């Protein structure tokens, strides 16, 4: 485009105002080509989709009305999920405090931060369900495997963000506390924690919420909680019971979200 010749007429001005962005258009075209290619690779066909829609209608029809007759099984599973989430959050968040502190590069020497960061990276990169599989194989079926998996996941998330929050603090206050002759723990408690506590509570409540969601899922691989009941109901084609379980899970998650919001408000 002739950007440097300062067009006099209105038409030239209009042409410059909304210049076509060929780079962006190429990126969009690239996406379109990729979608067609990948859909071909995965054998997506329109027929499969249409057949699926028919089956989906049948499936939905069998889900209604939800069957709550086995409510005892349902309540037992939900309570176990809740217990898994609570214990995993409590232990995971408590462990995240020292690990996050150790991973903060502005307070700790390299030989402490590197192992702490490696642990966080390891805990973060596997989905809680995969970690749950490993723990189920190692310590057997039951809620304990789910608890361990979620503890690891909590450390990965909370400790990472905690370390990042610590790295952003103002060092002036830390120096001031240090100048009074405070011990290391004194510096941490009086100089560091007050600056990051609000954010720590923020992502701890987020993690509580996220653990509650995942605790309903670890059962699919044998990690305890409602997930096992859900998966069994699916495999037995008990779709009306599936609907009942799903309704209860969603209700529990929404209640958890409300409680998390309320907790955050209390501590603001």
């Amino acid at each position: 485009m002739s950007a440097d010749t300062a067009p006099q007429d209105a038409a030239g001005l209009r042409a410059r105002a909304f210049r076509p962005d060929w780079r962006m258009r190429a990126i969009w075209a690239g996406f379109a080509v990729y979608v067609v290619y990948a859909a071909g690779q995965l054998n997506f066909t329109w027929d499969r989709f249409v057949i699926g829609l028919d089956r989906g209608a049948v499936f939905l029809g069998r889900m209604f009305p939800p069957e709550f007759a086995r409510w005892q099984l349902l309540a037992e599973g939900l309570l176990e999920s809740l217990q898994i989430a609570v214990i995993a959050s409590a232990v995971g968040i408590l462990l995240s405090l020292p690990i996050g502190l150790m991973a903060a590069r502005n307070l700790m020497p390299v030989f402490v931060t590197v192992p702490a960061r490696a642990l966080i990276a390891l805990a973060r990169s596997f989905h809680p369900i995969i970690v749950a599989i490993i723990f189920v194989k190692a310590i057997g079926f039951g809620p304990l495997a789910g608890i361990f998996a979620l503890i690891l996941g909590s450390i990965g998330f909370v400790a990472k963000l905690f370390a990042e929050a610590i790295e952003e603090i103002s060092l002036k206050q830390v120096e001031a506390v240090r100048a009074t002759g405070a011990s290391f723990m004194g510096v941490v408690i009086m100089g560091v924690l007050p600056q990051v506590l609000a954010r720590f509570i923020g992502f701890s409540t987020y993690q509580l919420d996220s653990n509650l969601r995942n605790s309903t899922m670890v059962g699919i691989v044998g990690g305890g909680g409602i997930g096992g009941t859900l998966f069994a109901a699916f495999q037995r084609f008990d779709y009306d019971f599936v609907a009942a379980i799903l309704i209860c899970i969603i209700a529990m998650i929404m209640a958890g979200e409300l409680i998390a919001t309320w907790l955050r408000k209390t501590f603001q």
Partner: protein
Amino acid sequence: MTLSADTRETPRWERFTPSQRLARFAVYLGMVMVVVWSVRNVRIIPEFLYDAHNQMADLFTRMWPPDLAYYPSTVHGALIETLHIATLGTILAIVMAVPVGLMAARNIVPFRLVNEFAKLILVASRSVNSLVWALLFVAVFGPGALAGTIAIAFRSIGFVGKLLAEAIEEANAGPIEALTAAGASWPKVLIKGYWPQVQPAFWSIALFRWDINVRESAVLGLVGAGGIGLILDSAMNFFQWTRVATILIAIFTVVILAEIVVTRIRKRLI
């Protein structure tokens, strides 16, 4: 925090009002009670714990050395399929989330009822875990990557739509008014007024979700929805631990690579 200005009149300063202190105390008490209740009631068989470290060590010795010969024959294809599921799922999610996000943004659609309806869709999408979406779609479309892709897409609508609506609501009204005053039609206002303002947020949301979806698509196979989870499940059912190790290493590498790619692109975009 109630640091009021008139400290002269109230010589004794307190950080919290009595009701705030009471609320905090109630929360602490409630938390401790819930934790104690959970620990006392959870169904744990302590005998399993006594030899847990032995079992763990045993598991890792069985995994060593990883069966690397298994990678080119099976794992590579499954890994690529997983990436396709994550990427296609993200694209499909964006296609579906844009209209819902527009409906949820109060400055685009000035009808409360429509906003609330769109928000309901977004919340419903987020409340169901991707594994549950996968179970549902496996029942509908049969086992395979199609179910996985659609599950990823449905799960992501809520996330993408919510953040997109927030980004749209934060858009500066100046350019919009200028375009409307110039007589631009409604789609033109969207494309030339909102889109340039929302674009950076849009790309960063899409990349962030793609990163999450790469992780999530790796487990969808456990319920039969395609990808690398499928071969992980079968390798574990046959106790082929060296193959399991290879698969886990592959997942780990891809997740780390995805994170690096996302951070790189974000740095260039923002």
